[in-house]
């Protein structure tokens, strides 16, 4: 085997290996937790514990992906991007997480606004009305903005492909879209975390 073949073999194996290791680690962690820990206690006592956990998890993953996307978007804006294929993939993943976060946010919202005395909305309206009327309402609308922005960025990156790199205003557009999506994500994530800290669903 030549040195070149050796290097190629390592590279080809690396992606599959990485995905495999990640899946095994996630499965191990989830399996170990479910088998040994009181998982319901981990989720919390509220009726919306499960959607809250999934919504929070997806939003956190989106924040993680969005941060990397913001950096790659900046590299795209300045014309110094090297990992264009990674940016294409990341844009799709970000749009997917945005969609999932919105779906699970909808589910959680049912518990948030439940017409009972101890629901978070009832609590806020009674004790801290500005938390619901300003911060939560801005969060719930701002969060929706991430989806069209992320989908639009992914669409341009895939539809135009390498031409995105050759046409400055397409690069600027995608970078702006990713930057705006990140802005609304951070607004929604930050306010969502704060609201949850004040009164979990």
């Amino acid at each position, binding site marked *: 085997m030549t040195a070149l073949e050796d*290097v190629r073999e390592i590279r080809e194996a690396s992606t599959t290996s990485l995905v495999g290791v990640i899946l095994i680690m996630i499965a191990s962690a989830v399996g170990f937790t479910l088998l040994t820990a009181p998982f319901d206690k981990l989720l919390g006592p509220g009726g919306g514990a499960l959607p809250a956990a999934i919504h929070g998890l997806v939003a956190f993953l989106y924040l993680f992906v969005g941060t990397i996307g913001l950096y790659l978007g900046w590299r795209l804006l300045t014309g110094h991007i090297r990992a264009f294929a990674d940016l294409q993939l990341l844009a799709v993943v970000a749009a997917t997480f945005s969609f999932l976060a919105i779906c699970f946010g909808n589910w959680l*919202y049912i518990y948030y606004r439940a017409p009972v005395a101890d629901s978070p909305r009832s609590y806020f309206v009674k004790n801290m009305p500005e938390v619901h009327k300003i911060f939560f309402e801005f969060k719930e609308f701002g969060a929706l*903005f991430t989806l069209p922005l992320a989908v639009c960025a992914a669409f341009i990156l895939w539809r135009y492909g390498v031409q995105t790199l050759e046409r400055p205003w397409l690069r600027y557009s995608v970078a702006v879209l990713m930057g705006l999506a990140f802005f609304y994500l951070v607004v929604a994530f930050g306010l969502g975390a704060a609201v949850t800290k004040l009164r979990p669903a």
Partner: protein
Amino acid sequence: MSPSTIVVKPEEKNVEVWAPSVRERIPGGIAVGALMAAMVGMLTLAVVNVFTTASPAFNTWVHNVGKFWMPGAQGIGPYSGKETLALVGWLGSWVIMHFALRKRDLKVSRWLIVFLVGVGLATTLIWPPVFEYLGGHG
């Protein structure tokens, strides 16, 4: 290790090198259509929310729109209808604009500015003190 055992590997390519696209130039209208549709979706959400704040009857109608198809819409409330109308505005306008603009090589720069103005307007309209004021609750 003696010098004779060192294997000199070829330099690894650690950056992606992109050759210029050999495909035909894709018209800018396709990107413009996607940008404008995203803006329309965001503005639809913002404007619908202002009118639901102003009119209880419209608010009820919007809620019924959500209940028409969205699981759990009864519990989600009028927000389900606002999401629905924003989705229809976004995807509907995208389909229309895509087919209307796909062969036109529009300048993306001009439309990006329009897009930014629209997004700024939508953001202003979803700020609660603003839509409460416009809805007559200020």
